[in-house]
């Protein structure tokens, strides 16, 4: 559950997740208007509060380096961060790829194709091992953060292509109608194009995000242990000897539950939005 995180400090992870679940839970019962603020808080404030709480180093909290983070909580942290950031980046890349400005268009294409063409394992190795060598002496970026950025950008490239599929499915008339009403590029995309395009590709988005969650175990190659990795480690512990099978079945089950929940959520979302037609 907590990996190598110090036992005495585990309450900090618990608190972080409790806050998370409390917010999500409460947000189901409050009015639409309040919900907006809850979501804004969740997206822009909570991640930093949560990380501070877990990593410590100030407010009298003892510093726990990210190498000691692990287990299921790490699975959640990585998935949540990557999902949160790969989505907007993917949308921007998708718009960029269809931009009429050649510079933006080719940068976007280059970026997407570069990340799509490289296996995730390679990307992880590069971020963990090679990237620090290029940094000037004295600068240091935490390994977990490097890996997070790598996964986020990797998944953003896939997200971009999914979103582009939605953009291309929209009839030209929607763009023309928006323009003829005097909307500029950003308003047209934010109000008319993206709401429709994203709705069209909810299944594809869900697919990409599920793949992301299931890719998190790969971070073991750079020495970070999330749930599955932790079980690999635990089975060498005499206390857990012979329990490897149960461990992996448990891990599989946990992943399945997470992914099934996400898939159900996406189906509900689809249904809810489609009735508005």
């Amino acid at each position, binding site marked *: 559950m907590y990996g190598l995180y110090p036992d005495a400090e585990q309450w900090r992870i618990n608190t972080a997740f409790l806050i998370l679940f409390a917010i999500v839970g409460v947000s189901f019962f409050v009015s639409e208007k309040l919900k907006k603020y809850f979501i804004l808080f969740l997206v822009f404030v909570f991640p930093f509060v949560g990380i501070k709480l877990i990593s410590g180093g100030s407010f009298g909290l003892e510093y726990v380096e990210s190498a000691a983070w692990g287990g299921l909580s790490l699975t959640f942290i990585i998935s949540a961060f990557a999902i949160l950031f790969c989505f907007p980046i993917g949308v921007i890349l998708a718009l960029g790829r269809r931009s009429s400005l050649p510079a933006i268009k080719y940068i976007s294409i280059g970026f997407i194709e570069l990340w799509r063409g490289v296996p995730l394992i390679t990307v992880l190795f590069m971020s963990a091992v090679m990237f620090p060598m290029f940094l000037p002496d004295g600068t240091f970026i935490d390994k977990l953060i490097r890996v997070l950025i790598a996964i986020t950008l990797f998944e953003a490239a896939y997200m971009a292509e999914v979103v582009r599929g939605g953009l291309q499915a929209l009839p030209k008339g929607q763009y*023309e*109608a928006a*323009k*003829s*009403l*005097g*909307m500029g590029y950003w*308003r047209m995309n934010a109000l008319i194009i993206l709401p*429709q395009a994203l709705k069209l590709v909810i299944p594809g988005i869900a697919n990409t995000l599920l793949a992301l969650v299931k890719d998190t175990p790969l971070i073991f190659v750079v020495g970070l242990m999330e749930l599955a990795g932790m079980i690999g480690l635990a089975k060498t512990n005499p206390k857990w000897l012979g329990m490897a099978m149960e461990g992996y079945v448990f891990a599989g089950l946990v992943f399945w539950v997470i992914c099934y929940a996400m898939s159900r959520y996406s189906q509900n979302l689809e249904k809810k939005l489609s009735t*508005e037609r």
Partner: protein
Amino acid sequence: MSKIIELKKVNKWFDKFQVLKDIDLEVAPQEKIVICGPSGSGKSTLIRCINRLEEHQEGNIIVDGTELSESTKNIEKIRAEVGMVFQQFNLFPHLSILDNCSLAPIWVKKLPKKEAEEIAMNNLKRVQIDDQALKFPGQLSGGQQQRAAIARALCMEPKIMLFDEPTSALDPEMIKEVLDVMVDLAKGGMTMIVVTHEMGFAKEVADYMIFMDEGKIVERAKTKEFFEKPKSERTKLFLSQIL
């Protein structure tokens, strides 16, 4: 009288294919002009150049005192003054009819939501579908959708309205309800350029008729003259086919 739209020697190409050839056109405020001509003659392209959904390569297009060119900074401002109604309606399917109408006034004109919705309801009443305001476009008939699209354009309080074959995608029994709205609009003094083959409508409201063929304006005449004694053979042939 000063002109609100002026086109001078406008030429336009799609790759090597020339769609518009030396188009000259002037429209005074409150004038109604009907453009007809065979399919592919460049009618849509011509009116789409007026709000720069298409770009022309040669000549000048001046709309309400502003020349349209690559360096036109505020093309959005011009477009906000020029309403357009499309053959395929192009309503926003993810928004209610009311939101379709109030969206641009809120986000482009920066009106308060309440005021924008009031304007929207007034225009929906004008096209007689205020009872459909909370429905979504997919729940309306073709005629209702096109009337909603007209209301949406009117909500921006445009100085000019462009219509590109507004009734061509409609079943016959719905054409009249849309034409009635357009006649009403014309009587209210709107400046209108209408591409249509509804000659009854043209005779009722048009000040001038324009006949286009192969990218050229073949004939431009007062409505009465145009129908009674067209000058060009091609116009005669065309009129004999559609009347």
